[in-house]
């Protein structure tokens, strides 16, 4: 069965803190993605990676960075958290280029105070 695991369901951080969100998939998928989901705005792509050590900016990369040192793990980093980064963060993975289902994790609800 397909499995995308996000390390935390809920996180509360303070403004200015460095925040790490971790995602692991066990399907040997090439592609991994980070989205944020906000009411009224839907899912917006932050970053994605199509191979180890490769990354590309999505639609809203500002204030975020990512790391993919191993195929199964994709980390989202908030270098200095701000209140406008309070959101639901969703990780996804897919098998390969184009025409493949993206499978999602359960999400991390991040609150920045």
């Amino acid at each position: 069965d397909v499995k995308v695991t996000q390390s935390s369901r809920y996180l509360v951080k303070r403004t200015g803190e460095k925040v790490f969100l971790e995602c692991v998939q066990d399907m040997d998928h090439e592609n991994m993605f980070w989205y944020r989901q906000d009411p009224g705005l839907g899912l917006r792509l932050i970053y994605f990676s199509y191979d180890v050590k490769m990354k590309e900016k999505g639609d809203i990369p500002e204030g975020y960075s990512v790391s993919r040192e191993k195929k199964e793990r994709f980390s989202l980093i908030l270098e200095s958290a701000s209140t406008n980064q309070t959101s639901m963060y969703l990780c996804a993975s897919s098998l390969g280029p184009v025409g493949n289902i993206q499978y999602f994790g359960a999400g991390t609800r991040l609150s920045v105070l």
Partner: protein
Amino acid sequence: GENVGLHLPTLSVQEGDNSIINCAYSNSASDYFIWYKQESGKGPQFIIDIRSNMDKRQGQRVTVLLNKTVKHLSLQIAATQPGDSAVYFCAEEGGSNYKLTFGKGTLLTVNP
């Protein structure tokens, strides 16, 4: 997420009725489409997909219809059950590799 249903179009149906959820997509070059279901507090869950060389695809209790002429996608759920209550959204892929563009979603409420 817990409040992902805010600000969304809503569809309310009676248990046992059929539901039809619509989606207008934006890119005429899109060639792959997916429907997702998202329950409160959970991540999106894959329901069914369809490629642009098809106009209909059926799964268990679900059917997706694709009309490329008017760039319209629909999800039909037969004999809707309370467990079908969720936000449903479509996603399209085309024009650039790897990336899906997601619709805002529709909140389906099933009344017992």
